[in-house]
């Protein structure tokens, strides 16, 4: 009997699923070596089928998306119970990613923004309710938590695979590894490891030349023309997140001529990604007076979005456990 495989999306965009499909023919290896038992985006399945499975009966679960509502949490706990290996897959599950930026706003504001802004036509002021009575009975929709949490703030996680989304060649390498493990040809890394990524930073893979940095002005990429194609992007005054971001993507963005936005998350051993980055940016500005410092830093109009774009929910400043009711 083939080992069982599952993949789930919680609060995410679906890009992670596409990245898996982007492994092209490698996906056939998954099918050849695993029995896919649960993968909502690819096949029909019911939660109750998963609930009926034996504990620990799924060998490998790739879980993408953060925990935004009680449905996400329920499935996270369920899959943890049923899986031998639970992989926190992609930036949302690992550190909250873009959905995690909503942690800056109260839930009421988020709903208000989504259902009643200038771009949303909602003349009857209809807002989603968690329960609704219909002739057939009571309907439930998931309840939003006050914050989004990365997977490991809710359940125990075996491995982390960063990226928004993870690079397909990295996914293929991980699939290969797991197949080898199944065949007894390789060993699993220690629990808690980050897989499918490097242990250094994007700069390590970036071919651009670097000098001692002294920045007089932070600019946006459209304000530089032409950009030097071989010189460090940060040195050209564009806040590039590469220096603090985990390697593994082959420095895709800098190689394509744009700044790293940090989707691979903090480098090995970095406790708080945003704090690292903002101290690094502050360190390279070339100023002597407080006014000058202010002026240069004004060139980063949204510091939180710049340095915590992917990592806010997973940062050291993560929401306190008291900020929401944890269902036990």
């Amino acid at each position: 009997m083939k080992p069982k495989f599952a993949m789930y999306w919680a609060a995410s965009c679906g890009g992670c699923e596409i990245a898996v499909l982007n492994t092209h023919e490698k996906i056939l290896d998954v099918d050849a070596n695993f029995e896919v038992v649960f993968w909502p985006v690819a096949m029909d399945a019911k939660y109750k089928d998963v609930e009926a499975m034996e504990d620990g009966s799924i060998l490998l679960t790739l879980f993408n998306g953060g925990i935004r509502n009680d449905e996400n949490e329920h499935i996270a706990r369920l899959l943890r119970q049923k899986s031998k290996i639970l992989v926190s897959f992609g930036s949302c599950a690992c550190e909250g990613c873009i959905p995690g930026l909503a942690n800056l706003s109260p839930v009421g504001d988020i709903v208000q923004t989504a259902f009643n802004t200038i771009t949303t036509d909602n003349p009857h002021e209809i807002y989603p309710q968690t329960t609704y009575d219909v002739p057939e009975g009571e309907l439930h929709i998931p309840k939003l938590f006050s914050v989004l949490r990365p997977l490991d703030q809710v359940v125990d996680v075996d491995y982390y695979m960063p990226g928004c989304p993870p690079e397909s060649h990295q996914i293929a390498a991980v699939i290969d590894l797991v197949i080898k493990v199944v065949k007894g040809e390789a060993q699993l890394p220690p629990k808690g490891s980050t897989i499918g990524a490097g242990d250094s930073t994007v700069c390590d893979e970036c071919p651009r030349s670097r000098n001692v940095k002294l920045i007089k002005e932070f600019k946006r990429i459209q304000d530089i023309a032409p950009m030097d194609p071989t010189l460090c992007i940060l040195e050209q005054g564009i806040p590039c997140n590469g220096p603090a971001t985990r390697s593994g993507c082959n420095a895709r963005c800098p190689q394509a001529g744009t700044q790293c936005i940090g989707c691979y998350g903090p480098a090995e051993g970095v406790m708080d990604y945003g704090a690292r980055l903002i101290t690094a940016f502050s360190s390279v500005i070339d100023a002597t007076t407080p006014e000058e410092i202010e002026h240069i830093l004004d060139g980063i109009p949204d510091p939180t979005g710049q340095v915590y774009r992917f990592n806010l929910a997973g940062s050291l400043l993560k929401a306190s456990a008291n900020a929401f009711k944890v269902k036990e």
Partner: protein
Amino acid sequence: MSDTRSNPVDKRSSPVEKKIERVGVYVCHCGSNIAGTVDVVDVAKWAGEKLKHQGVVVAREYKFMCSSLGQELIQKDIKELGLTRVVVAACSPHLHEKTFRTAAKNAGLNPYLVELASIREQVSWVHSDKTVATAKAKAVVAGAVSRVIENRPLDEIKVPINPNTLVVGGGIAGIQSALEIANAGFHVYLVEREPSIGGHMAQFDKTFPTLDCSACILTPRMVEAGTHPNITLLTWSDVVNVSGYVGNFHVTIKKKARFVNEELCTGCGICQEKCPKKVIDEVYEAGLGYRKAVYTPFAQAVPNFPVMDKENCTYFIKGTCKACEKFCPTGAIDFKQEDQLINVDVGNIVLATGYDLFDARRVSNYGYGRLPNVFTSLEFERLSNAAGPTSGNIVLRDGKTTPKNVGIIHCVGSRDKNFNNYCSVICCMQGLKFAHLVHERTGATVYNFYIDMRTAYKAYDEFYQRVLEEGTLFVRGKVAEVTNAARRESEKGKLIIQVEDTLAGKQRRIPVDMVILSSGLQPRYDAKEVGKMFGISCSTDGWFTEKHPKLDPVATMTEGIYIVGCAQGPKDIPSSVAQGAAASARVLDKILQKEVTLEPIKASVDHEKCSGCKVCNGMCPFNAIAFIEDDKVSDINPALCQGCGTCVAACPAGAISGTGFSDAQIIAQIDGLLLRNLEPA
């Protein structure tokens, strides 16, 4: 780029079995300093119970932990209970960290395995509610316990001390300091911004209370400093950069172009005599007299070489003149001279940068700058000086009229919430000295307007009595206004001083011919930048901050940097001289130790994690970071690293860590403070 670094497996964390440390916690009462606000018995008991699972094997409280009995208590426990970590909950580490670390060392424990939890400065002294303070003390202790477990044993580093000393500022405090060190046989670089040493004291006529001639007692010291074989005098020079640390400072000094070759100049003064350009002397003569474009500020200047004022020299402005060059008998004038950068290495630095006089224009109701016969204290010093612009004749601004009535206003700019809150110390005695001089030289009626009379020093009050007996009139009250708007016939053509006489209990208008403002002292306009350059801080008033206001008044928080004279705060000449000498004793102490012990706090780069982004490369104030081109990584030279932590914070990859301040230590301390590491209930 190759794929080699992006292997699919990477260790996120390697859970290593932690050895349980044996921690001793010692809570100090500090008499009632701590015990008055914190329930120290409860804190010790709590630590023994709630932090037991972390390794706390003993928790005691004691009246004075820093006493020899207190220290012995810790030493005994280290030996008998086999403690591997010690937390002393007492005062700030600034006070007794060294005491307890040395005690631990003597008991065989590495001194860096001892942590101080500050429950005095950070708890008992800042709280009044005992319940709250006790709870906070527990949190601070819990933080220290969590942290100390992460501490690693470190070895102290010893480096030799450079025996040379830099003294910045050639006023009386700096001169005194330089002479003491030079006389002890060690070399001193004495740097002065102006063309001559001497400072403010060289501008005074008489000194209070003895009425010694200021120049007569100062100039021998100036000459001694100028000719001393152990003193290199660098006047017309500025310190532009300082790096390094105690024992090994590297200093760059800019020697401004004098346009006079010091090797050839004999100081004969012919150039000054022949120079056709007269300039108002704003510095030495306080704007009351003239100097030439090439000049020495005063006759007894040390060194005696003139400087050329490029802004005002006709040759530099129009390209012709060169009168000085034509008449110079030794060919010493050199119009092509350029600023020179001189690098010196020194072991210690004494800052004697002095003060600026409070700008009396700021008190607009006293009319200085608007009413011609209102003078500042420095102007009066020049006016009464025999070598000054009026040859010592005390006259009005017209240069000839002797005043019949003179008002002297104390506390100008001082003890005033609109200007400076502090007392400038010298103004009362200065005002009394002025009263005496006016009386003696002109026979005028003198009024002194004071808030409080402060004559607290040896022979000072006796001088006050003397001035009283001479017939000076004293009015106790803060002057509201000095005006020339006469209300009566008798006030016409006079300056009228409007004041509330608080002793007589009435408003008075006193017409006088001359008003002297006894202006206060304030920090140098550039004290903040100078402090930054030398790595020391300024108080809110702007004076340099001493290490301890009572017990360490000339040292600073930066080891090897000392502050003397008015740079540290307003003071008179005897105190400045005493401080100059005191700092020298501290410097000689350091020099004679021959080596200095440095904290083994150093940063290092994990080459595996470093991606060579070069963010840190420009950061190091000690130039300790180099980039290894072959490996494409940055590296720190431990001999140069001073452990400031700048690069540790800057490294975006978290590849740099600092001993003594590792992430593990800091996070553990935060967890401890937040009481996350308590014994599970």
